């Protein structure tokens, strides 16, 4: 490790709409250093990386490469400066082979204007050997395992002469042995003077691999420490902060005499759900917590009939429940507000009234025997839901694209409220929603529960669930690892359980 930092960030600020994602961040990354970066979702890690990658421009603050201030105008310039970024999704072209992916976007050697793949292969092969690629480079990417794809991505960075490689959650989909292999390669890279910015939720990994760790919380750097001066507890506190938990305002009375609305037993689906059992009471707000990849989203997809489980059974309102499609689930009285609002929940280009009517088309017939749409009732319902959820729109004919994120989210939730399902599942209901709208959405959820609807809320934001839920199930690696009730639901407890499961298991 040398004395002068390769990358220096000073006083970086960046806001998106009303949200200050980075509130003046400093960071130094030295050549040959494996630098750990940690923080809860929304702490500002990804924003920092986007700024370094030249994808987002900071509002203020400076970025120095080798001590020289630079203004990044785009990702190409960042790449030319030796900054390389491997995202969790890897961004590889599935139908191309390994070599083509490694050379994607890189200048290629040509012979008479034709790409000279043989020369390129000769040039890439030593690099591939170095990162431990033991398979031929003409294999299509789609046939490779996640671990092998990571090696391809690292190789791609090295071919482009990267001096800093940022890795986002590299071990999220790797086995223990594959992870250890990756650590070996990361250490070897560092030995050759390449800096690695290692972003991970897995504290044990960070402690083992990174000589220095930086923690972000709410857009600030809250800790910057040498490894040997650091305990796991300190790291956790830095991530979580010392905020007092807020408990749900209308806690449900658990009544063991009443049968549960939903009973899930022994659910298994591939590698993502590995034996999940739980009961859901009527009128209960149940939180599902856990890190990305813990199986939360997969679990609710099975409950909603979007995926089929390998084994396990479900009961819904005392009936056997095995939905083969979302339409089946809707008929049982289940609604879903999906995570990707625009892609999976909203009908863009269509009006507010159109969007709100879609989950209730059967009830909007003029007469039960006459399949004509009752346009007036549709308008009444749209107005009623609009005012109940306080959707800010000029009229029910407003195209939903013109609404703010929070109001769009209310529309996506609102379409389920017309027929009042027995169970409403919300996946990340306040993602991309500003603070005010978030409060309103929480208020709506609590009201629905008081009226007897059961609600399952998935959230990555650990402060969201304590304020909202009667009970929280923490998931990790496809299993429920902790159940929290009432006053034991705290941000601390959720984060502890999310991170701690493998430590306690080991």
């Amino acid at each position, binding site marked *: 490790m040398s004395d002068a930092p390769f990358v220096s960030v000073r006083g970086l600020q960046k806001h998106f709409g009303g949200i200050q994602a980075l509130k003046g961040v400093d960071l130094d990354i030295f050549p040959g250093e494996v630098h750990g970066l940690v923080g809860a979702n929304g702490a500002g890690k990804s924003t920092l990386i986007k700024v370094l990658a030249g994808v987002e421009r900071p509002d203020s603050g400076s970025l120095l490469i080798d001590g020289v201030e630079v203004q990044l105008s785009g990702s190409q310039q960042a790449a030319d400066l030796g900054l390389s970024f491997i995202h969790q999704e890897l961004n590889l072209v599935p139908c191309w082979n390994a070599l083509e992916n490694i050379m994607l976007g890189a200048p290629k050697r040509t012979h008479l204007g034709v790409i000279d793949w043989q020369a390129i292969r000769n040039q890439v092969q030593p690099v591939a050997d170095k990162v431990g690629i033991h398979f031929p480079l003409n294999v299509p990417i789609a046939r490779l395992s996640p671990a092998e794809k990571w090696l391809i991505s690292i190789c791609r960075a090295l071919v482009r002469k990267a001096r800093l490689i940022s890795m986002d959650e590299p071990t999220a989909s790797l086995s223990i042995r594959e992870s250890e292999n990756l650590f070996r390669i990361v250490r070897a890279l560092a030995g050759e003077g390449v800096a690695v910015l290692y972003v991970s939720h897995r504290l044990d990994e960070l402690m083992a691999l990174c000589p220095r760790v930086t923690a972000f919380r709410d857009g600030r750097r809250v800790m910057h420490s040498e490894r040997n001066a650091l305990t796991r507890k300190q790291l956790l506190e830095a991530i979580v902060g010392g905020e007092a938990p807020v408990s749900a305002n209308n806690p449900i009375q658990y009544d063991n005499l009443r049968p549960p609305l939903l009973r899930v037993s022994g659910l298994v689906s591939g590698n993502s759900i590995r034996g999940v059992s739980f009961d859901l009471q009527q009128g209960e707000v149940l939180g599902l917590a856990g890190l990305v990849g813990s199986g939360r989203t997969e679990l609710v997809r099975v409950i*909603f009939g*979007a995926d089929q489980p390998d084994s396990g059974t479900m009961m819904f309102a005392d009936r056997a429940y095995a939905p083969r*499609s*979302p*339409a089946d*689930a*809707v*008929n049982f009285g289940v609604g*879903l507000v*999906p995570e990707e609002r625009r*892609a*999976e*929940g*909203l*009908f*863009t*280009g*269509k009006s507010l009234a*159109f969007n709100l*009517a*879609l*989950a209730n*088309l*059967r009830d*909007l*017939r003029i007469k039960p025997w006459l*399949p*004509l*749409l009752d*346009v007036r009732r549709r308008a009444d319902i749209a107005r009623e839901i609009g005012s109940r959820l306080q959707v800010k729109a000029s009229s029910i004919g407003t195209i939903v694209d013109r609404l703010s994120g929070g109001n769009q989210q209310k529309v996506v939730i609102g*379409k389920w409220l017309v027929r009042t399902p027995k169970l409403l599942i919300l996946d990340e209901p306040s993602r991309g929603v500003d603070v005010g709208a978030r409060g309103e959405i929480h208020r709506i959820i609590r009201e629905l529960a008081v009226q007897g609807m059961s609600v399952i809320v998935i959230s990555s934001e650990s402060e969201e669930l304590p304020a909202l839920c009667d009970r929280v199930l923490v998931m990790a690696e496809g299993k429920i690892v902790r159940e929290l009730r009432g006053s034991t639901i705290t941000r601390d407890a959720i984060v502890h359980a999310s991170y701690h499961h493998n430590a306690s298991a080991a």
Partner: protein
Amino acid sequence: MARRVSKNRIVLSLLAKYGTIFGLFIMAGIFSVLAPNAFPTFGNFLNVLNQASLSMIIAGGLTVAVVVGELDLSIGFAASYAGVLVTGLIANQGLPVLLAIVLVLGCGGLIGVVNGLIVTKVRVNSVIATLGIGTIVVGLNFAYSTGAPIVAGVPDAFTQIALGRIWGVPNDVLITAVLVAGLWILVERTPVGQSIQAVGANPVAARLCGIRVDRIKILGFTIAGVCAALTGILLASSLGSGTTGAGDSYLLAAFAAVFLGSATLRDGEFHILGTCIGVLIIAVGFNGLAIFGAATFYQYLFQGVILILAVGLSSLSRYFAEK
């Protein structure tokens, strides 16, 4: 300055929405001035509608398919097959006219169902699937007719369907009016129509709303197939014969009308009313060209130019209006 910009914006967004309708009226106005004795007459008005009606039926069906977000390239071939089949069943197999028509309409629906099943269950892109099925339909057509037109033995009862008039209005026009009204109600004013629009707007969200997306898509193809068959039947009726390639050219005309229509009233969205305008623009243009005795090739030049011009201008003005 700021006011001027917003004024330009209003003009541009008006142009994007109503440009095609303006175009239709301007065209009709020009023809009326240039040919005051031939163009703006009630007789010619009915004539235009009559010429437009077959295109309107097939384009109306295609509109439903594109509203669910798929393309159907088999409709022209399905129309040709329907014409051959209906005349053949009546003239060669001796089936009653009504029964033959019902069978052939069902056959068109079946072609649509097969298209839909291949797109939704086998997951073949709709362009490829309908091209393949369309080609198979051409094969079936030749297999049935051996390529020779079916002329002999077509009874008046069948030819009178297209040629007859009620209160002076051609039957084709009446049938088309009823069908278009039905399609409009279906798409715009029924719960199924809302599902059709939802599937086209966002299939993932539609599925997560509990809409059975595959069924809706199959329905869209089926409607397109039935409408294509109806066009083929009426064409055969008006020609008095079944010819293997008679309906093929309706494919391009239908697509032109549907895309012209998407540039009308709504921002780039397909809808039945828009398709009506699109069909009328092409029919009025052809009619005017015919009145002035223009050679046939002008019709094709006109159709191509008007399509590019209308859709291009509409999308450009929308782009600048939003900028």
